[in-house]
């Protein structure tokens, strides 16, 4: 459509070029009436300001984007509109001047939400990244967090695999605490911890507040960064109906390479032979390929995604409403996700002074929780069939007809799938009601009451069945859990704006009250009359009636204030302050104070650089601030008691006792996170090329953490909360953006973002290492030491393989002690780091760091005529990952299934391998203890999404009564370049357990077909 306008514009220009001179003489220097229409990609633009250059005379466009103005034929008209590129149009004696304005996607006039207010990007002083909702909408996901990957500098998103509806892990500038690192979400001014209810297509814009100077206005919950989301609202003069539809098919992006039945049997035989045992398989080759458990458990899975948005805006009433439906099946069988959302955003102008409105979102989803087959289908032996032979199935119930495993302790995964009945229903209602009052003299007051109501309900059923002694359930059972949250937020703010001479002042002051209530109820029971579908309900329970529940409430009260001051648009200063009081702390420690200050200097506006035409922006920014963290248990201050179980008496009755379960710490206070940020924004060639750079240093003080204490001080495993740790994080972000409209009509917008954030634990309670990540084969996987990074991998260090017995005997310490006396040729050599002549626990060291040197994203958008193309790459560099399934698939003892080719890769005689030990059942050397053998380079580069769109020409649109239509095809997770041997190196996890592949849900490769239609 825009093209059409441009053509008209060109035609008019050419016409006028020839025609105007004819009239020039006659009409010279007489005012004339000029009419026109202002338009853009999104339709007619009302409210555009048109000013005659050099004067204060002007007008604005009406609801249909039309205007009329009187001007001299030689005047120049300046069209300005927030969020659009300013256009200067010489009148040249034309009486009709139609203008098509272009949206200024990341331009200086862009308005950015900074929490309780907005600011022009140009006037920004802190470190804030932004992305438009339209860019996120290109990723076909139910969950907003997944769409954020690779989009923003300083925001590291790990996808956590591709299970339906899955939430990604988001780290804003790395980790700031060893506890939860979830950012705070603020949706339309309402702070929330949960975002998965939101349809990504309803998002207008996302701004991520990264540094403390920006976040401090959110005080005590902002220590992990703040993600501000503005949802779509109607604009004045706008009426449209937008329908988005897409259909996708997902397939497994990378299938793990596993041994087939023949290789499995050969490995088992070889391992037995090497250990002097009899061979378990007489004729391996007769087994053929056996069962491909991976193929059994995975499938092609569709995603349906529909979204309807209706906007209508008048001067007094703006309504935006919408309905969406999303349905995704899992590529691993047994899982699925379905969601319906309804949204209503309304704003009424009651009087000139009073505006009221509400935002209401209703989100209902259902997750079918699959049985988590990924780990087991890789470990189970391929030599057994899925089902029992038919003659053995007789008389067994439908859950017992699966073949028992023979050599492994893995339960038949298809059996697990058959008896997987686990669904979660989640209903969330998020809404707010607000009133704004224009008091005059630059003051406005605003009060907003918001609520978050959620009802989470999980239902499960487990049938009774018998496959084998270790894979059975004697009784069936059913259960339900309710988990309800009722959160209220009340914001009361006064805004003040004043401009005088070269000064501009913006201020807010306010107070907020928040309350968080959480109630749970769980019930379950056993011995249903049968496994019949109609009896899988609590009503049918006949034994073991169980009920439990919890009630928790916490509250918070805050005062906040902020001043934004600008002088001549060149010197900018922002100062903010917030005071929070939380019910979680004692009266003495209740209040936390969070100040921040930041400034910026727009050098490009200075006269001494005004001659430098190629420099369109040069800005230096700097800030300091403090934010807080109060993420502790509500009862952390108290030593509470819990139930114990014992038996007394002749009748051996169960006796429920009581004992302390925690050690309270009444002296707890806020954790404080402080940082400094220095940044620069540069723009060249009228912002065609922009570069941004930020450097930060952050320090978490009085870090809230569970403290290990001597066992004699309390109940076993008590780790009272304390304010002891100190963690520092440093890093930078770098963004380059290039926008160019070529003469050929080709439009290019490309950007690269690179971020780095490295953490260092500078203080821990008693200097005691924190161990985390208990693995059945490898024990504790990570350690966090004072002076080191968080969650580093910690184990033995390998040094190749003993190629012959004399290497074993000659591997001695200085006194001639054989260091690995139990080893033999083909076994792993470990380094005796402490030189005591033996391999002991003291020979372990940090063998890997899950923190990347940097993570990055590359965004390329091309548009040519009716076509557009977008590509998003993302990746990390320099991080280590731990392949936690390798202790099974590479141990080569012939029990669990092995990686394909292990038979030939394993050491088998001198010189055959220096990395993969011999196959063996008996392994006295403990070759497969936790060592750097399991640590791999997790660097990767992924084409995360690619999309080609076709905009239906306007004349065609008009014929089919549409105002706009775009058809697109896309693909996600197209390819991944990595050295990681597992399925996917893009692993999330908590601060202490990052980068561990626990058999993560496989990444789907998605092919997508869709349309965006505007009526």
């Amino acid at each position, binding site marked *: 459509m825009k093209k059409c306008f441009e053509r008209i514009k060109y035609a008019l220009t050419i016409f006028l070029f020839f025609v105007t001179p004819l009239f020039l003489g006659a009409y010279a220097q007489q005012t004339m009436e000029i009419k026109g229409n202002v338009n853009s990609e999104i339709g007619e633009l009302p409210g555009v300001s048109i000013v005659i250059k050099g004067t204060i005379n002007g007008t604005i466009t009406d609801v249909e984007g039309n205007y009329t103005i009187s001007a001299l034929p030689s005047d120049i008209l300046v069209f300005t509109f927030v969020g659009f590129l300013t256009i200067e149009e010489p009148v040249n004696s034309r009486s009709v001047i139609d203008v098509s304005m272009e949206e200024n996607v990341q331009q200086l006039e862009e308005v950015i939400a900074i929490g309780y207010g907005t600011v022009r990007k140009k006037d920004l002083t802190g470190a804030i990244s932004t992305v438009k909702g339209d860019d996120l909408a290109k990723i076909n996901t139910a969950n907003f967090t997944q769409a954020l990957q690779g989009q923003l500098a300083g925001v590291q998103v790990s996808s956590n695999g591709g299970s339906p509806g899955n939430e990604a892990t988001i780290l804003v500038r790395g980790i700031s605490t060893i506890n939860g690192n979830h950012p705070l979400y603020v949706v339309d001014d309402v702070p929330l911890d949960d975002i998965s209810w939101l349809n990504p297509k309803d998002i207008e814009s996302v701004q991520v507040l990264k540094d403390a100077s920006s976040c401090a206005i959110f005080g005590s919950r902002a220590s992990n960064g703040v993600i501000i989301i503005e949802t779509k609202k109607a604009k004045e003069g706008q009426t449209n109906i937008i329908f988005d539809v897409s259909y996708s098919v997902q397939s497994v992006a990378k299938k793990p390479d596993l041994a087939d039945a023949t290789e499995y049997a050969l490995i088992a035989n070889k391992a037995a032979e090497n250990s002097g045992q009899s061979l378990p398989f007489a004729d391996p080759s007769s087994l053929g390929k056996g069962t491909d458990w991976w193929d059994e458990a995975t499938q092609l899975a569709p995603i349906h995604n529909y979204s309807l948005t209706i906007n209508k805006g008048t001067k007094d009433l703006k309504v935006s409403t919408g309905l969406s439906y999303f349905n995704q099946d899992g590529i691993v069988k047994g899982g699925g996700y379905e969601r319906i959302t309804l949204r209503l955003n309304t704003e009424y102008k009651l009087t000139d002074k009073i505006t009221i409105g509400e935002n209401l979102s209703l989100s209902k989803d259902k997750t079918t929780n699959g049985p988590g087959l990924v780990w087991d289908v890789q470990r189970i032996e391929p030599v057994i069939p899925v089902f029992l032979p038919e003659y053995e199935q007789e008389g067994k119930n439908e859950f017992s007809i699966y073949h028992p495993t023979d050599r492994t302790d893995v339960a038949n995964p298809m059996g697990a799938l058959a008896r997987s009945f686990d669904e979660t229903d989640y209903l969330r209602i998020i809404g707010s009601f607000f009133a704004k009052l224009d008091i005059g003299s630059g003051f406005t007051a605003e009060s907003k009451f918001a609520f978050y109501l959620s009802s989470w309900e999980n239902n499960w059923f487990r049938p009774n069945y018998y496959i084998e002694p270790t894979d059975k359930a004697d009784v069936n059972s059913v259960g339900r859990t309710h988990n309800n949250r009722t959160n209220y937020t009340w914001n009361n703010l006064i805004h003040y704006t004043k401009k005088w001479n070269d000064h501009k002042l913006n201020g807010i002051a306010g107070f907020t009250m928040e309350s968080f209530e959480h109630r749970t109820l769980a019930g379950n029971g056993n011995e249903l009359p049968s496994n019949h579908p109609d009896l899988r309900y609590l009503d049918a329970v006949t034994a073991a009636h169980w009920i439990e529940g919890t009630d928790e409430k916490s*509250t918070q009260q805050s005062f906040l204030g902020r001043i934004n001051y600008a002088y001549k648009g060149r010197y900018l200063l922002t100062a903010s302050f917030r005071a929070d009081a939380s019910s979680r702390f004692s009266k003495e420690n209740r209040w936390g104070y969070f100040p921040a200050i930041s400034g910026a200097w727009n050098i490009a506006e200075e006269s001494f650089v005004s001659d430098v035409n190629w420099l369109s922006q040069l800005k230096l920014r700097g800030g300091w601030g403090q934010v807080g963290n109060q993420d502790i248990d509500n009862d952390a201050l108290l030593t509470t008691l819990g139930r114990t179980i014992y038996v007394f008496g002749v009748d051996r009755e169960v006796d429920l006792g009581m004992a*302390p379960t925690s050690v309270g710490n009444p002296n707890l206070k806020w954790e404080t996170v402080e940082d400094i940020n220095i940044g620069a924004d540069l723009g060249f060639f009228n912002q065609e090329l922009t570069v941004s750079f930020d450097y930060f240093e952050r320090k978490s003080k009085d870090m809230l953490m569970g403290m290990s204490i001597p066992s004699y001080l309390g109940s076993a495993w008590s780790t009272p909360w304390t304010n002891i740790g100190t963690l520092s994080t440093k890093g930078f972000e770098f963004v380059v953006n290039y926008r160019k409209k070529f003469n050929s009509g080709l439009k290019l917008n490309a950007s690269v973002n690179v971020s780095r954030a490295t953490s260092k634990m500078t203080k821990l309670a008693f200097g005691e290492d924190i161990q985390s990540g208990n693995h059945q084969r490898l024990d504790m996987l990570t350690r966090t030491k004072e002076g080191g990074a968080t969650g580093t991998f910690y184990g033995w260090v390998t040094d190749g393989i003993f190629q012959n017995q004399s290497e074993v005997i000659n591997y001695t310490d200085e006194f001639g002690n054989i260091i690995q006396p139990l080893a033999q040729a083909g076994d792993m050599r470990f380094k005796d780091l402490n030189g005591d002549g033996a391999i002991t626990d003291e020979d372990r060291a940090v063998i890997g760091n899950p923190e990347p040197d940097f993570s990055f994203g590359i965004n390329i958008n091309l548009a040519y005529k009716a076509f557009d193309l977008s590509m998003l790459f993302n990746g990390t560099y320099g991080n280590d990952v731990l392949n936690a399934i390798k202790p099974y698939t590479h141990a080569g003892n012939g029990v669990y299934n092995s990686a394909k080719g292990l038979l030939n890769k394993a050491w088998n005689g001198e010189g055959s391998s220096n990395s993969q030990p011999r196959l063996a059942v008996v392994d006295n050397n403990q070759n497969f203890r936790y060592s750097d053998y399991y640590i791999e380079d997790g660097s990767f580069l992924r084409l995360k999404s690619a999309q080609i769109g076709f905009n239906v020409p306007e004349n065609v649109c008009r014929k089919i009564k549409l105002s706009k239509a775009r058809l697109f095809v896309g693909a996600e997770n197209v390819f991944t370049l990595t050295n990681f041997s597992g399925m996917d190196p893009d692993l999330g996890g908590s601060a202490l357990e990052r980068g561990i592949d626990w058999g993560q849900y496989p990444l789907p490769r998605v092919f997508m077909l869709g349309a965006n239609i505007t009526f």
Partner: protein
Amino acid sequence: MKRLTLKYFLSLLFISFVLMSCDEFLDQPVKGKQVLSNYFSNEDECLKALSGCYASLSPEDWWENDFFYLIGDICSDDAFKGNPIEGDQRDFGNLARFLITPQNEWTGVKWRYSYEQIYRANLIVKNVPEAPISEDLKKQIIAEAKFLRAFAYFELVKNFGGVPLLTTPLTVDDPKLPRSPVSEVWAQIEADLQAASTDLPEKSEQSASELGRATKGAALAYLVKAYVYQEKWSDAEPLAAQIISTTEYNLNDPFTMVWNVNNPNGSGSIFEIQNNYHELYDAGNALPSITRSRADGGWGFCTPSSDLDIFMTGDPRRNATIIKEGDYVDDEHPAYDTSLSENETGRTNRKYYLPIADRAEVDEHKRAPLNQILFRYADLLLLHAEAAWHNGSSSAALLSVNEVRNRVALSPLASVGDQLLTDIYNERRMELAMEGHRYYDLKRQAGILQSGFPRIKEVMEAFVDYNMNSNTDYDAGNNKGALFDVSVHTLFPIPQNEIDLSEGAIIQNSGY
């Protein structure tokens, strides 16, 4: 209009401040949880706290304490780790092989739960005297708590040697405790047991609902054991004789009934962990499930050695102690499958074996109804025999050991001198095999062949020699025990994190 809006605004402001000034908004109580600071306010709370103190003997899950009761067998010549899966409970296997480090998970677990029990007992000893309850009940509760505290310190001292000694609850702000000398720990154990014994009832005096609680007999029996561990023979013998003379305990139960699930707190039972199946609570024992064959739904840990089996050849107790591959067990298991590929010895522990009908139908690994017998009369008789021998009264020793033999219809012994001691030791091995005593007995007894060393040295050497050179059974060639070092392995290492957390106050046992 302007005035009106201002009025709205001011009233809004006013309402806000009124609400803000409500401090109650920020006072949110913790809901549904009792708090220690106001606990011990009535009889019920005191009794529940005592119940919690018993619960530390065997907390809910399999690994929390139950598993460690196997250590006395796997760290001896009686048993192996069990299943040969290298990484399956690696640290458990490392204990069996004496590849023990201060990071060992299981010694850490034992330490933690022992101190948990001491903490709970200390809370009672400190708070119950002030509680508004009857003096008789106070005495009873405190006596039971002291018994349990002594039990916990006994567990600590026999595994770790001297340990931090505290008899009242401490807080994080108190200075970190060093290890007390072994003698002081023993002194505390003796003091607690003596105090407990004066206020506790005899087993026969207990009401039906009290059965399973600590008794006077139990307190005194543990006192005997404490004397024996310290080689206080002259104290041990008369006290043991005193308990015997009360006739509170006897050997009337046939041997096959001692560990029978249907004979809890049998006639010879002095103290046992009370377990039962409950459809809701994990009130049961873990060991039946953990030790049973993997072919029979168990986990295959702690399997009896062929060394023990051969030692017991012909002994009437053998079939009630060991199940060997192919043995008849019951009609459902006429030829027992020990899952040879997952069993180091082709055997499984008969004492913890439960017939299918008696197995918990849900969560068997924490709900088996079998009581865990910690102290029984035969044990006391054999301790009496040992003490009597050391005191030179062979006839008293013979009387006790023959009482044990008599139950299983073995002919009375008439040996004398060193042979008698050996016979008492052998009787002890067979009577108490696979009940978690062997390692602790061997390390407290003096060597017979190598008298300068604990007896465990010569036993482990013979065991390794047998396995490596003459054994032709399933466990042939297994060199478990080769790493045993008598200068190190008679005590387990203090858990490393406890040393770290002590800020230098705790010194590690030598050799670790």
